[in-house]
């Protein structure tokens, strides 16, 4: 702790933060996991999925973009906030086609893992939007099924900021806002399997799929088959 560091609390636990850190960055360092989907290690914060919503000084904010402040009182795992998070995850499930039993990402999928963590274990009351966008399998090594996209934009940021390519972008507005590629299809972009955006574990769901490696790791031995999402961060605290 340097002399500029300060402390604040999350659910009563004291957390140390450096000036300029967001609530989530400080929480991660302290071993407190705040659920998130659009935020990803090494990428700019976006604050769009809202699953990381917390109450800071009584006001609802996104923990991934809200700066921590000395003495700030943050509530995270209250029943009210957890219910809202679950509701947001339900919305994402119903917006796209998330049929876990037939999805290659099952077990590695952060959306699926988040649903389990937040206790989404029974049918919801929402209708399904059932998008029918064509799958883009034009690229020799990559397939893109945007019906499973949750609009987190992680691939856009990874391609722009890490790969320095700009393969992906948003198109459309509102419920029609989608990930699209910088060309008529993926084969007409400079996307490569080795890109961080493709193979870096950036896509949280089964939207970006690398061809010919499907099911190499069997169901049951996958990331979230072994531990609950967020446990890796929580282990720091134990």
């Amino acid at each position, binding site marked *: 702790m340097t002399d500029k560091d300060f402390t604040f609390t999350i659910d009563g636990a004291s957390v140390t933060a450096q000036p300029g850190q967001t609530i989530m960055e400080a929480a991660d360092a302290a071993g407190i996991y705040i659920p998130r989907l659009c935020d990803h290690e090494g990428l700019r*914060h976006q*604050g*769009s*999925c*809202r*699953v990381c*919503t917390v109450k800071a000084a009584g006001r*609802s904010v*996104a923990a991934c*973009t809200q*700066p921590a402040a000395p003495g700030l009182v943050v509530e995270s795992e209250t029943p009210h906030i957890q219910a*809202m998070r679950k*509701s*947001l995850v339900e*919305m*994402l499930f*119903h*917006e796209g086609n998330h049929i876990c039993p037939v999805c290659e990402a099952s077990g590695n999928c952060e959306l699926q893992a988040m649903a389990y963590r937040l206790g989404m274990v029974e049918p919801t*009351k*929402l*209708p399904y*939007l059932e998008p029918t966008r064509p799958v883009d399998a034009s690229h020799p090594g990559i397939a893109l099924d945007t019906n499973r996209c*949750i*609009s987190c934009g992680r691939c856009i940021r990874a391609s722009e900021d890490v790969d320095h390519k*700009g*393969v*992906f*972008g*948003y*198109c*459309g*507005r*509102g*419920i*029609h*806002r989608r990930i*699209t*590629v*910088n*060309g008529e299809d993926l084969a007409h972009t400079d996307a490569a399997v080795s890109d961080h955006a493709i193979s870096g574990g950036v896509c949280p769901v089964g939207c970006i799929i690398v061809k010919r490696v499907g099911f190499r790791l069997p169901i049951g031995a996958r990331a979230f088959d072994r531990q609950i999402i967020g446990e890796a961060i929580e282990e720091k605290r134990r």
Partner: protein
Amino acid sequence: MNGQADHQADAIAAVAEEAAAATGHDRHRLLDMLLAIQERCRWIPPAAVERLAASLGLTPVFIRGVASFYSFLSLEPKGKVIIRLCDDIIDRHAGLDAVLAAVTDELGISAGETTADGAVSLEVTPCIGLCDQAPAAMVNDIVLTSLTPETARHAARHLKAGKPLHDLVSPHFAGLTPQQRVHAQVASNIRAPGAVLLGEVPREAGLRRAATMEPRAIIAAIIASGLRGCGGAGFATGRKWEMAAREEASRRVVICNADEGEPGTFKDRVLLTERPHLLFEGMTIAARAIGAAEGILYLRGEYVYLRDHLEAVLAERRAAGLLGHAILGCGGFDFDIRLQLGAGAYVCGEEGALISSCEGLRGEPKTRPPFPVQRGYLGFPTVVNNVETLCHAARILDLGPDWYFAMGTAGSHGTKLFSVSGDCRAPGVYELPYGITVGELLALAGAEDAAAVQVGGPSGVMIGRDSFHRRLGFDDLATGGAIIVFNGSRNILEIVDYYLAFFVHESCGYCTPCRVGNVFLRQAIAKFRHGHASAEDVEELRTLSATIIETSRCGLGTTSPNPVLSTLSHFPLVYAAVTRPAQDGQQASFDIQSAIETARGIARRRSFVYDRDFSQ
């Protein structure tokens, strides 16, 4: 054939290059370039996207992302003329159906289509700010008002025949001044001029006073006047200016928000038409107060018909030494204003989204903090004020803060413009002191049979007769000024459904609750309209609304459930009347026949269990 296609692509690329060159290849002016290409080509062709990308050092997907954000930019070919009928609920109540039927009949196309010869496209669009003269339509850069099936059919026939568009306004259009052209299209409908804005206003009196004052003293005067933002949120104007002035920065920016998009609001249209000098005076005063040399007027795309008029006023002011270097002869008082036209996106009325749009980005709100007064346009401290707010500021500098403070109520000082429309005899703009009751305003507007009033537009609240005694102002019913009147024959749930459809259409899609939640909220209301809702569904409405409000990223999402919540609390009987208890623990909305329809199609046979007439 290939040669011809190449030639066409070259011609399009030349248009794109010309549009880029007109801004000095400044990528922050991408929206201007896209609007110029749209105007010339009637769409944004792929060749134009490629050329802009190469010319500006951007990716094509980024440019398509920006173009696809705005309703008035199209990545598909459109007709030479685009007729956009306003399909606001007020236009519907005023006879939109018959107007639309006449136009579709005359053109032989439905909304969303283009005639085979590429002459005319027909579309519908949310509120275009002409609710006081509905039904109305935009046709390229002009507007048509108070349409009847006959006048609409005549216009469609005229356009289909390829006759000059501007003849629809006046046969002498070319000979009219820009302001005469505006008046030939739209009536201002000033019903009650007040003490501040719409009565007699001397030219430049506030600016002349401000030019002699220290910036700090100007800010102190605005703070002392009690002026609060007139766009709806009501932030203290003087405090906003003070915060921007206090930031360390090499540049500062004043932006006027003329993206008046809240359905039922049109007061800024009237100010832009009748008091443009007062507005620019206010912007110039704000610039002096915070030390800004740059100003932007962000004009909503629907108000394109005001563009030439406003440009003419800006030119006049430059010529008169009221803009540019050493304004009014004061050394160091430099300020100029550029007009940024929008392109059909309600969310750009949110100040962060508005700034994004001015920067050539998708019109998505920005993450706060930092706030615009800290880091706004291009990262510089930026004050974004509503048209009406800036006009008030100019008057306060002229007549003093005490004069202004004395009007209104304890928490809301001065006067307010109200845009009154719907079921009343005198729709139009009323300038009245804050604190007037809804009932008093309704009496002035001739709305004796009002049964429900939407105060502040869809993002505000709907109240019934038992609340007409309430006062308009920040102390009680806060409003940006939209007063939409409905009589007893109107269907409340239809209105709620329309407003939710509006928010679904206008959500930027950035955050989950607003993008997805509003779609489900609208579907939940459909359940009530179809008589499939039970008492539990009322609770569902409240829970979903609360999640959207609490987790959304900007003001659009945090207010979009208001039509549902305010009607639930003020018109509970409307919901009770269409709610029935769930039977046998089943959801009333579940319909086994429609549920198995897809399966029947796939199996190509009927169901043994559920088709009673299986034998047939």
